């Protein structure tokens, strides 16, 4: 009996896999389908991005159809490659993608481009060498993380004195945007004459950064500032500063301008952060893709604003 049920279930499954109706040639439909392929939708930053895209589509419903796809966790490359292939199979005319990895997504995107799909790269820039080697051309729409971090660092440095000891709490060390932010912090500290005594990873997490910050404060009693590569880590670092009784004596900086950081900015526990306008990021990418579909030739790169927020 049980085996019968199993066979029936399998048959049903296989039935579902029968050849689907022929898909329309990309771009030929009255309303082109644009697939937005994101990293984790459980992340506040990408959730905001998706929301901005949905609002834009609702306002321009006659111009295009939107397909929002996200992966479960930010390092699941295989799943994102799969999403790209699914988007092509569903007849997307354009794919706007925030790649989970700068290199690993290149082959899948090149295959999509060869089938006539327009590719626009947002948020995390694809590796230029890998893309060139594969023959992939994709416009990049996104923020300059290094410059943004440099300006956050300079805003923080205004509260310090040259020669002060500072430490950097970076993100996951393999992430390109994390590396860029660390480099931007280092640029700022060097130009302002501060001494970077330690660089440690908080792996983007509040709790990890809290532990790292507590130990940095102990190991370097003269520490005057903690520069964190995202706001969650800045909240963790600010809590460690408070637990050490050093609120006000040790400055904290973050990145992303999430909602939860606002009370800490308001009372000075966090000195500065950066707003990348996540809601606009995907919208600009979609507009770039639509322009390419309309004009028939690729649009260029577009830099999006990063604003330093200090209150």
């Amino acid at each position, binding site marked *: 009996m049980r085996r019968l049920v199993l066979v029936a279930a399998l048959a049903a499954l296989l039935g579902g896999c029968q050849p689907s109706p022929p898909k329309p040639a990309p771009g030929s439909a009255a309303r082109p389908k644009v697939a937005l392929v994101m990293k984790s939708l459980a992340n506040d930053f990408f959730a905001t991005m998706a929301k901005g895209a949905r609002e834009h589509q609702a306002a321009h419903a006659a111009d295009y159809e939107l397909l929002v796809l996200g992966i479960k966790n930010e390092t699941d490359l295989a799943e994102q490659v799969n999403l790209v292939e699914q988007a092509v199979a569903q007849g997307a005319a354009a794919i706007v993608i925030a790649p989970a990895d700068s290199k690993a997504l290149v082959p899948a995107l090149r295959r999509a481009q060869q089938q006539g799909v327009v590719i626009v790269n947002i948020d995390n820039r694809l590796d230029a060498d890998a893309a060139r080697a594969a023959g992939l051309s994709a416009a990049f729409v996104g923020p300059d993380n290094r410059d943004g971090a440099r300006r956050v660092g300079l805003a923080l440095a205004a509260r310090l004195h040259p020669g002060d000891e500072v430490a950097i709490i970076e993100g996951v060390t393999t992430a390109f945007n994390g590396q860029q932010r660390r480099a931007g912090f280092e640029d700022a500290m060097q130009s302002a004459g501060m001494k970077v005594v330690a660089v440690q990873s908080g792996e983007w997490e509040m709790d990890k950064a809290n532990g790292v910050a507590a130990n940095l404060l102990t190991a370097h009693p003269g520490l005057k500032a903690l520069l964190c590569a995202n706001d969650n880590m800045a*909240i963790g670092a600010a809590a460690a500063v*408070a637990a050490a009784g050093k609120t006000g004596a040790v400055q904290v900086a973050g990145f992303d301008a999430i909602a939860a950081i606002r009370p800490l900015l308001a009372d000075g526990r966090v000195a500065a952060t950066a707003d990348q306008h996540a809601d606009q990021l995907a919208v600009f990418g979609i507009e770039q893709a639509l322009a390419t579909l309309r004009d028939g030739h690729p649009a260029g790169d577009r830099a999006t604003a990063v604003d330093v927020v200090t209150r």
Partner: protein
Amino acid sequence: MRAPRGSDLWVLLAVWAGLVALFGAFGPGFLSAATFGSVANRIPALLLTATGMTLVMVTGGIDLSVGSVLGLCGAVVGVTMVDAGGGLAAALAASIAVGTALGAANGLVSVKLRLPSFIVTLGMLEIARGLAFLTTHSQTKYIGAAVEGLGTPLAGLVVSPAFLIALAGVAAGQGVLSLTVWGRHLVAVGANAEAAAIAGIDVDRPRIWAHALLGALTGVAAVCNCSRLGSADPNAGVGFELSVIAAVVVGGTSLAGGRGSVAKSFLGVLIVATLEAGLVQLGASEPVKRVVTGGVIVAAVLADTWRRRA
């Protein structure tokens, strides 16, 4: 089965003392009240969950969902205090209720339906994390001073109330395991369920209750974490289950059940946390920290196993 002996503790104590001496020799500021305080105030959540996990593992079960349940309970604390305007007591009650419910569900499903707890709690890992994102709309909740009391070091002491609560939890857990009939039943069920059943012990109930108790302790742990950070992060506790299980295993609790000690799990937590603090203070890079931590976990288990054979 052999009754746990106090003398087994010395191997782990020696490993811990060795670490402290090593870091003290190389890290100038390591041997200080500030280091002790930062280690102590960081571990309450790990101590409470390791206590519960020891009881579950003694019965031969395991719970892979603790990290996600910790995240969900934290989300519940955030929503209770920020969106519903509740106080700390209400948040604690809600967090414990949710933790207990999920723990009991883990226990009931795995024991009554005869499914491996490894699989059931793997499913719960996904469910609880998804619920954590749903309840918070994937946003970190900033709670502020209302929750921070438990995590703030006490005046005149370097440790926080949360650490003292966790110590009390460890003491109670060890007491239950080695001094009560229920505790002996946990060990008996884990060592040989058939023999325990023949001896007239209800083999289902202790296992279900152990899972529920771990859930309740995870609820308390979530409040401790939120109070230390002043916020609730729905991503909190990703990978936390591995830290908990590592600490419990370093403490000599058998993955096969039938043997375990909460006091030794406490030392396991202490070893892992001291290592983390020392490596940061020495300025070790992330990859080096991982390699060393993994090595020490294996070495500590080896030392304990050799001591047991000798």
